[in-house]
């Protein structure tokens, strides 16, 4: 007999969690402890040698965090996950398992500005060389592939432009090149897009945004799809060769289709150290329980606001993939049929000054550098998140000087629209 498989909303509440063994506590407890006692010397040795499953030290793993990891792995359809201190920590921890000094990775030009900075400066100093490609022209990914390419990195829905990426087309390039496709799924969340279903090998999130959803905790996560064969051509020795720090264990051979997540934990997190606090894991877990409801409402509100702005005389253009006629509308229908997300940009006929005025006149929207909150948020990327980029890079990243980014919250949509209305009148 084949069992009935639970749906997304059930997984968002239950996956990974189970009443506490000692107290029976139904909600996941916050295991606010640095360390865990061993049963005996042999148990300790088994844990350190990766022979047994279990807890050692919260830098490497924690029971509250493990519930979060399993839950996100389940929602994304992956084999395992590793939660870390931030979205940026997820990026460096994941790429550290794949790249050696002198290696390259291809990244979509349309990315969160902080990721462009991280790749351009910090990663360059590690000898990891980013090669930029244009997600609107797949051939630029193909022509960027060299024998040193170790990964391809894209965002499913790009920040700040809100454009939808053709994940399957770029996955085909990655397959042909024999490298994993890494998808930052922060803006979509697994409720709107499950990149693994479209060929992603690794999925990353800044859980700071929609997974947590309440603007209260920084966190990141790495999901292993279990789809990539790391041993095929010796390109990924971290996974295929004996690890000296673990007495010669070969990670893929030992851990099979969740070896990448294990490598990120027992090498990346252990050595780079960007562990998430159990308290943040707890808050994000609580947020995930309502992810389906929140994403539905985010999308409904965003579409209503985008439609209203499109008809406003002061507005030059609205870039929301959920609108008919938008350049990314077909991709949005294919990849995100439940909705194109909460984030979009628009430009004002009054240019840079009108953008700055709008931001200062809004009363309900908060002017800040985050997205994916219950609250509606606004920012002028050119003067904030993307200010370190030069003008050409700003435009390429979808953050031109006249552009305003909104992250639509869960307030009544009439109130959100009324706030924009009064601010645009001033």
């Amino acid at each position: 007999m084949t069992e009935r498989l639970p749906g997304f909303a059930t997984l968002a509440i239950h996956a990974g969690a189970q009443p506490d063994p000692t107290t029976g506590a139904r909600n996941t407890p916050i295991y606010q402890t640095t360390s865990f006692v061993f049963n005996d010397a042999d148990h300790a040795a088994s844990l350190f040698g990766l022979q047994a499953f279990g807890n050692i030290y919260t830098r490497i793993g924690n029971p509250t965090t493990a519930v979060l990891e399993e839950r996100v792995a389940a929602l994304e359809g992956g084999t395992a996950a590793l939660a870390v201190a931030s979205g940026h920590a997820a990026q460096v921890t994941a790429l550290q398992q794949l790249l050696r000094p002198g290696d390259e990775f291809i990244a979509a030009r349309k990315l969160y500005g902080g990721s462009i900075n991280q790749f351009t400066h910090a990663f360059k100093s590690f000898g990891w060389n980013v090669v930029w490609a244009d997600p609107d022209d797949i051939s630029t990914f193909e022509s960027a592939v060299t024998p040193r390419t170790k990964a391809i990195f894209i965002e499913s829905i790009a920040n700040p432009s809100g454009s939808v990426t053709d994940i399957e087309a770029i996955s085909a390039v990655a397959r042909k090149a024999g490298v994993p496709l890494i998808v930052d799924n922060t803006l979509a969340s697994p409720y709107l897009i499950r990149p693994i279903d479209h060929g992603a090998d690794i999925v990353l999130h800044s859980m700071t945004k929609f997974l947590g959803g309440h603007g209260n905790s920084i966190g990141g996560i790495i999901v292993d799809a279990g789809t990539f064969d790391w041993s095929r051509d010796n390109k990924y020795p971290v996974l295929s060769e004996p690890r000296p720090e673990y007495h010669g264990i070969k990670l893929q051979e030992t851990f099979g289709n969740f070896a990448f997540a294990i490598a990120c934990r027992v090498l990346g997190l252990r050595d780079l150290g960007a562990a998430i606090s159990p308290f943040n894991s707890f808050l994000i877990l609580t947020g995930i329980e309502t992810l389906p409801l929140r994403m539905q409402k985010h999308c409904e509100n965003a579409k209503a606001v985008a439609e209203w702005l499109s008809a406003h005389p002061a507005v030059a253009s609205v870039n929301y993939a959920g609108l008919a006629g938008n350049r990314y509308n077909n991709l949005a229908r294919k990849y995100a049929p439940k909705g194109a997300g909460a984030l979009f940009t628009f430009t004002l006929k009054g240019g840079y000054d009108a953008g700055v005025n709008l931001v200062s006149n809004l009363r309900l929207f908060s002017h800040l550098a985050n997205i994916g909150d219950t609250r509606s948020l606004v920012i002028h990327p050119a003067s904030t998140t993307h200010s370190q980029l030069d003008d050409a890079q700003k435009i390429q990243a979808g953050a031109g000087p006249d552009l305003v980014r909104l992250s639509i919250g869960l307030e009544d949509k009439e109130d959100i629209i009324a706030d924009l209305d009064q601010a645009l009148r001033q």
Partner: protein
Amino acid sequence: MNHDTYDDNYIRGILNGVKTIAMVGASPVNVRPSYFAFKYLAQRGYDMIPVNPGQVGKSLVGKPFVASLRDIGRPIDMVDIFRNSSVALSLVEEALTLDPLPKVIWMQLGVRNDEAAAKAEAAGLKVVMNRCPKIEYGRLSSEISWMGVNSRTLSSKRAPIPTQGMRLSLNRVSFGGGDTSAADRAAQGKKDPT
């Protein structure tokens, strides 16, 4: 029977039903996957027998090695094959000479031999290929969740307190059918998985 994916109930039935497991190709080297799996299954209460002709005279976590399945001299429920796919057929043929017959042939992660599987199934044995019993046990009991691994199961019952040597409940609701195809692809052209 389809050997690309397995229903959780099928795996659960096997792991709940067998008691005595002969592991062919068990290694005494404590960083090899076979050593990990052997020790783990012994701690979970299975009666484990290491089979490796090169190690006779030594023992593995206190259990003496035997040279072949025929040398075990008592009934076994399951043969766990930790050897190259190409020798799986001759190992199944050897297992089919045992009296009583074992109930299950399990081929380890990376090991798959469809001809051997067909032969065992024709004799009424259950077969699992390209899976690790340690990982499956950890997954179905959710113990593996401590490593952030997706157990693909749910439970609203109080979790058992983990102690050494206990048998964990494998009885959880499943939410994912089988495995991904990566392990299968990785299995192509693999050498001895011990």
